[in-house]
Each structure stands twice: as structure tokens, then as C-alpha cells.
């Protein structure tokens, strides 16, 4: 009896269960998006809201993204390191930075400040690079790492197996944002420019959601439907199939 194959089947069972449980989380998100109408920015009220609009730079202006050197209002950098557990390659996050925090989102009625911190970004990757043995990161990436007290080299100066990913938000990008509108704590309410600075869109903790995407709500819901089918139907099928495989193999072994 090949114990490796049984091991894979065991992992498959575990994954099937996780998929199934995650399916409910995805269903919950879908119900929230479907039941919440899109708000006009001019009349936003404190609480969970869904808005749609174009990106405008905040007072910090337009910055250059650290990896791809493109104009943006903010960027999220993720650096992951590869490690091996038996035969499996696994990426774990070493550094997660947000470059530039805030931007304005504008629709036909007004603008609101959006804080990118802790947001789940569903936008295309603007830069992805793998470094490792014989492959060094580009010079500007090395410079960025040095400025942030990071080293791409490991033991004996050999390049670490790292994955560099960058997601950027550009001016005039059309975004869908689902999160919580709150009073902006860093601005004096009396002096804040009403309708622009006095409120900020940020992460909601109850329900636990903060989602930013460059797709429309219809496209997002379509994608979620496929995901739910894959998780809620695929999860039990994977679990059942792997369990059956293990059981039959154990029987044969007997």
C-alpha cells in the first residue's frame, strides 16, 4: 500500500471539508451584497455601505508604486517566502505593506475618503516576480527591500525563494467598495469639508468585511456563484471521494 497516495487522499479530505465550510462564508457574503443597495456618496450614512465610483487622489497626491514604478494613489506590496513541507511548496507572508493609505472615491453626487488598510483587494496584479537561486530581484526592488530592513539574500549570500506581488490603484480606476462608513477620526468634525472628509470608508468588523474590486457588482456576484458551487458541492464530493479511496485501499490492504 502506497502510504504517500493515502497521505494525499487524507489532505484531499481535509481540503474538501475546508472548502465546504468556506462555501458558507462565501454564501453569507453573496447574501450581504445582494441585499444591500448601492448608496449615493452624497447621502452616505454611518454603517455598512456599498458604493461605486472613480478613484481620485487624496491630499498625498499621486505616488510611484515601489515595484512597477507606475503612477498610483496607493499600492499593496506582499512579499512571501517559499518553504517546503515534505514535497509540498508553501508560501508564507513575510511582509505586507500598504504604500499610501487613502484616496477619494467619486460618483455623480460627491466624494468620500477610502482607507485601504485591511481591505481585501480583488484587482489585477500589476507586478509579480519570483527570486531564487540564480534569479535576483530587479535593482529598484532590492533598494526597496533595503529601505524596509529586508534582505533578499539568505545563507552565504544565496537568494531566498521569494515572491513579490504588487496591487495598485490608479487615478480614474472604477471601483466597487463594500465596507463600513464611519466618522473620520483624524479630522476635526467642525472643520472637515462636509461630504468629503468628515466620513471615511474602512473595514467593517461586524459583519467582518471590507472588499474592493475593479469589477461591477454583477460580475462579482457571477464569480461568487461559481465559487459557491465549487465549494459547497465540490467540497463534499472531494471529501467523499478521498474517504472512499482511503477506505477501499485499507480494505485491500486487509
Amino acid at each position, binding site marked *: 500500500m502506497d502510504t504517500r497516495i493515502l497521505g494525499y487522499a487524507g489532505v484531499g479530505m481535509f481540503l474538501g471539508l475546508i472548502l*465546504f465550510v468556506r*462555501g*458558507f462564508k462565501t*454564501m*453569507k457574503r453573496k*447574501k*450581504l451584497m*445582494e*441585499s*444591500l*443597495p448601492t*448608496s*449615493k456618496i*452624497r*447621502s452616505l*450614512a454611518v*454603517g455598512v455601505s456599498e458604493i461605486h465610483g472613480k478613484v481620485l487622489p487624496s491630499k498625498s497626491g499621486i505616488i510611484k508604486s515601489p515595484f512597477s514604478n507606475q503612477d498610483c494613489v496607493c499600492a499593496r506590496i506582499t512579499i512571501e517566502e517559499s518553504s517546503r513541507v515534505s514535497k509540498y511548496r508553501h508560501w508564507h507572508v513575510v511582509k505586507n505593506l500598504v504604500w499610501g493609505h487613502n484616496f477619494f472615491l467619486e460618483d455623480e*453626487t460627491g466624494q468620500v475618503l477610502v482607507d485601504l488598510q485591511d481591505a481585501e483587494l480583488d484587482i489585477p496584479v500589476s507586478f509579480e516576480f519570483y527570486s531564487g537561486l540564480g534569479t535576483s530581484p530587479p535593482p529598484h526592488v532590492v533598494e526597496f527591500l533595503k529601505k524596509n530592513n529586508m534582505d533578499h539574500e539568505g545563507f552565504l549570500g544565496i537568494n531566498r525563494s521569494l515572491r513579490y506581488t504588487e496591487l495598485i490603484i490608479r487615478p480614474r480606476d472604477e471601483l466597487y467598495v463594500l465596507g463600513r462608513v464611519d466618522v473620520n477620526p483624524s479630522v476635526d468634525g467642525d472643520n472637515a469639508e462636509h461630504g468629503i472628509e468628515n466620513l471615511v470608508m474602512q473595514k467593517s468588523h461586524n459583519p467582518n468585511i471590507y472588499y474592493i474590486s475593479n469589477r461591477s457588482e454583477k460580475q462579482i456576484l457571477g464569480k461568487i456563484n461559481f465559487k459557491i458551487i465549487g465549494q*459547497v458541492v465540490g*467540497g*463534499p*464530493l472531494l*471529501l*467523499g471521494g478521498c*474517504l*472512499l479511496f482511503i*477506505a*477501499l485501499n485499507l*480494505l485491500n490492504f486487509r
Partner: protein
Amino acid sequence: MELVYNVFLIVGLIVLGLIILGIVGYIFSIYNSLVRMRNNIQKSWANIDVLLKQRSDELPKLINTVKGYMKHEEDVLTKVTLARTKFLDAQSVQEKAASDNMITDALKSLFAVSESYPKLKASENFQKLQSRISGLENELSDRREFYNDSANEYNIRIDSIPDVFIARMMKYTTPYDMFKISEEDRKDVEVNFDK
């Protein structure tokens, strides 16, 4: 053979158990989302109420500003005052919605009549109040739309399969009324270019 059959049976039962769990979870999610929608509708109405109160608080300042200029327009000013009184006395959602329509109509008349008083129009105080009330009217109109969207979504859900079954068990069968425009606003506007 019997052992193989038993293995298939056990695995089948586990998968069936998960499917039943999935169905139960789906029912719970429908229940929770209906509860959330009802609360969201009540919240969106409360958010309209906040703006109605703000608008109502501006009206005494507006009346004080204009009455010195519009001495012969008592009817218009009385209409605004009466509409405000009706709003302050309103208890139910329907009463507040009705008084909201009355205030909107009264303000339209007042601002239309104010066009004939250039000194009033030039007054900084009046311009600020007019701008503030117009801003509130715009926000109110957005929030009414939001309320209608929320109510419409809920009304569709409690009548659609499969939510209708859960809604009936929860006795969530009464649809929410939507904001409607007043009869005055439904009338055609006569435009006369002859003068």
C-alpha cells in the same frame, strides 16, 4: 463484498450528512438575510428621519429671514409653518412621509415666490439657508431612493422561491410601502411661453 458495501454505505451516509448540513445552513442563511434586510429598511428609514429633522430645524430660521421681505405672502409662510407642525406631531412612518411631502411642496412654493423679491434673493442669510435646504433635499431624495431599493428588494425576496417558504414561517409576509410622490407633483406642469 459485504465489507465493500458497508464502506460505500458509510461514505454515502457521510456525504448525505454533509448535504443535509448544507441545506440546513442555506435555510439559516435565508433566515439571517431576511432579518438583516428588515433591519436595514428600518435603519434606512431612521436615516431619512434624521435628515427630515435637520430640515425641520432649518425652517424657523428660514421663515424669520423671509418674513421681513415677504410681508404680503402670509399664505406661503403659513403653509410652511403648518407643514412643519404636522411633521413634529407625526408619529407613524406614514404620517412622517405625508408631512415630508407637505414640507417639500411648501418649500417649493416659498422658493418660487422668493424669485419676485430681489432684495431677499440677494440676502446672504437667505442664500445660505436656501443652499443648506437644497443640499438636504438632495440627500433626502437619495435616501428615499435607497429606502425604496431596500424595500423593493425585501418585497421581492419574501415572494420569491425559496425565500417565500422561510418568510411565511417567520410571518414576514407584509411588504413594505415605498415612498411615493405627492398628488401635486403628479400633475402636469403648464409651461406658457406667451407673455
